[in-house]
Every structure is written in structure tokens, then in C-alpha cells.
């Protein structure tokens, strides 16, 4: 059943992506100032959003784990962090390529770039720490605590943006500017593509969560064999 949902989600994501790509290249014109490259935005920004949402979903699951001690919550938190990290890396790489064309540099220590990078480093540390702990209960407990610290830190980092001079383009989405800067046709594709990437992420999380349960089963069988022998 779980696999069918994952496959279904992936199929829906693929169909939506095909449609979006067609729209992006065949229907939408080049942007006046940036030319063709602006299309990277359709992946760059949704990847950032999906990553950011993911970290806070993981925070929710971490808190849920601590109150319920249900391992499914821990598995979900770990899976969501891992998948979010993939999309955060997509975000950084696509952003870097865009910056090479528009700014002429691959990287700059701008506040938003810095905070995105810090986010990646924090949750990379989360995954590294998970690998270093073998006992599942201890791992779940400690990584939940780390996830809470990490998310609070992300909020603080993000807040300090306003105090740091910034080079990054300002917000272009409706909900942040309170009335669009973006062309409605573009905004439409943008949100469709956000949905597509979100579906890809959900499918990946489902697969990853299943693997976590398998790993836990292996661990408990090992312990059983250990005590029986």
C-alpha cells in the first residue's frame, strides 16, 4: 500500500513536471532583463521553499517523537531532513549558476546565501550525528533534540538577514510583497512547479521512511539473535 502511494505520487509529479517544462519553454517568453536564465528561478526558489518547509516539518516530527516515543515520527523526521537537504543543495547549486550569469560570480557572502548555507551545514551535522549512533532509541532522542536546536538557530539566522547588507533579489512572491511583482502567467507556472517539486519530495520521503523502518527491524532482529545465542 505504502509503495503504491509513493509510486502514485511520483507519477503525478512526473506528469506535472512534463506539463510545467512545456509551459516554461514553449509558452513563456524570455524575461526582459535576464533572458533565458530566469527560468532557473522555477526550480531554484521552489527547492528552497521545499527545503525550508521540510526542516520545520522535521521539527514537528521531532517534537512529536519526544512526546509520543513513536519511532515512526523519528523515521519521518530523519527522512524529511535528508530529502530537504537534497533540495537545499539543488537550491544552492542552481542559485550559484544563476549568480554566475547575472552577478558574474559563483558565490558571495550575502546574508540570504549565508543563511541557506548555514542551514545545509546544520542539517548535514544532523545526518552525520545520526550515523554515529547505533542504538535506535538513543539516536531518536538525541537527534530530536538536535533538530529543535537547529530549527531555532535557523530562525535566528534568518532574522539577522535584515541587519546584514544584502545583494540577493528581494521577495518576488505575492505573499511576501503583498501584491505581485511577478507576471501572473509566470506566478502560475511557479506555483505549479512548486507543487511538482513538493510531490517529488513527498515520494522520496515515503521511500526513505520505509527504509528507516527496515533498518530498525534489522537492528532489533540482531539484538534478538544476540540474546538468544
Amino acid at each position, binding site marked *: 500500500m505504502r509503495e503504491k502511494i509513493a509510486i502514485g505520487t511520483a507519477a503525478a509529479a512526473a506528469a506535472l513536471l512534463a506539463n510545467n517544462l512545456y509551459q516554461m519553454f514553449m509558452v513563456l517568453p524570455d524575461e526582459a532583463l535576464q533572458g533565458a536564465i530566469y527560468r532557473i528561478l522555477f526550480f531554484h526558489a521552489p527547492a528552497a521553499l521545499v527545503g525550508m518547509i521540510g526542516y520545520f516539518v522535521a521539527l514537528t516530527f521531532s517534537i512529536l517523537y519526544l512526546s509520543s516515543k513513536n519511532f515512526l515520527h523519528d523515521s519521518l523526521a530523519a527522512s524529511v531532513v535528508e530529502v530537504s537537504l537534497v533540495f537545499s543543495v539543488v537550491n544552492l547549486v542552481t542559485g550559484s549558476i544563476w549568480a554566475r550569469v547575472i552577478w558574474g560570480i559563483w558565490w558571495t557572502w550575502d546574508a540570504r546565501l549565508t543563511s541557506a548555507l*548555514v542551514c545545509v551545514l*546544520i542539517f548535514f551535522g544532523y545526518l552525520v*550525528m545520526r550515523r*554515529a549512533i547505533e542504538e535506535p532509541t538513543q539516536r531518536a532522542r*538525541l537527534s530530536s*533534540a538536535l533538530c529543535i*536546536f537547529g530549527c531555532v*538557530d535557523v530562525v535566528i539566522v534568518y532574522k*539577522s538577514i535584515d*541587519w546584514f547588507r544584502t545583494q540577493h533579489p528581494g521577495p518576488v512572491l505575492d505573499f511576501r510583497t503583498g501584491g505581485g511583482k511577478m507576471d501572473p502567467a509566470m506566478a502560475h507556472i511557479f506555483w505549479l512547479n512548486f507543487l511538482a517539486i513538493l510531490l517529488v519530495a513527498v515520494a522520496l520521503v515515503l521511500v526513505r521512511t520505509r527504509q528507516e523502518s527496515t533498518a530498525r527491524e534489522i537492528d532489533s532482529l540482531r539484538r534478538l539473535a544476540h540474546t538468544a545465542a
Partner: protein
Amino acid sequence: MKTIRHALLIARKDLALELRTKESLNAAGAFAIVILVLFSFAFEETEQIKEIGGGLLWLVFAFAGALIFNRSFARELPNDCLDTLLASPLSPASLVTGKALANFVMLLAMELISIVIFGIFFNVNWTRHIGELSLVFALGTWGISILGAVFGALTVNLRLRELMLPIIIYPLLVPLLIAAIELTKLLLSNQSMTPNDFLWTKLLIVFDVVFTALAMLLADTILVN
């Protein structure tokens, strides 16, 4: 009240042990001095050093801090002292606070040595804004210390403990280090603070308060398995 009394007890015990063995102070102090000497070869002009001095100092503090924090809970491992403490009336929150206090004192001592050496090697007069500078150092050092204590506790039973601690705390410390570096740079270059710079002080305070509260809240989760 009880938490504070117990925290002071732990801090005093840790400092007494440290003064006797000098395990982490020697390592951290030697590290700080070596880095400062190496940097004095790399940079010569005094104007340049005022720009990067803040960054240099805080990176030295953060790196030397990791050496101190690694020992912080590891000190409790021989003879299962950590178990004994946790089975006693002492609360995990007071244990973490006590460790943070001990870290704070050790790191501050190390910072004092570092800045004196920094002043001599780079010919920088750092005493002109000593009041503000002390405030910045205290606020920044507390933030580093409390995170060092929390993650010292979190990593104490892990494989590769010494490696894991820096991987986890440095990214978390970024906002604190940015603020502390900006303020230190300002104070070393002999400018007075503008309202805009108070934002950095505010950031330091917010960081300290938020993470101290979080540490108290999660101490049980981290220490009682």
C-alpha cells in the same frame, strides 16, 4: 534556587579538577597562542589587522572552546561519575548549567590570555573600550559555553566524540559569531557604537537567552536515556 546552587557546585568541582589536571586549559591555551603567532606572520600591517582582528579572535575562541567543551562531559565518564550525578538529587538542567558555567570561566580565562597576546603581537590597543568589549566578550562567551555544554552532553557517548562536537556546534554558532565579530571589529577600530550596532548586541542577548532556555528545557531529554 536549588538549580543555581547545584550548578555552582558542579562548576566549582569542574574548575577544581581542571586546575589540578589542566587537561583542557593547556591544550586550549597552547592552541590559541600558536594560532595567534602564525597569524602574526601572515599579516603585518596594523590597519589590516583592525579589520580582521575581530574575526581572528573569535575564531580562535571558537576553536579553542571546542577543546574545552570536549572534556566538559567526558570528564564524568571514568568510573561512571555521570550516572552517579544523574541518580543524585541534582537535576539535568543544573548539571548542564554548571558545565556551561565552568566552560564560561575557562574560556574567558583563555580569551584574556589571547587578547593580551593579540595586543602585543599586533600592536593593537584594545583597552580603550574595555567596558563595552568586556560586555561583548561575556555575552558571546556565554552563548558559546551553553551550546558547548549542551552538545558536550549530547555527544558524550558517541563514537568520534571529538569530531562530532565541532561539526554540530560551529554551524549553530554562526549568528553569534557574526554578531560578536562585528562588535569586536568596531570596538578595536576605536569607533563608538551607533544605534545600528546595538542590533548586534541585541542579537547576542537573544541568542544567549533563547539557547539557555532551550538547554534547560531539553537537558532531561539529552541526559536521561
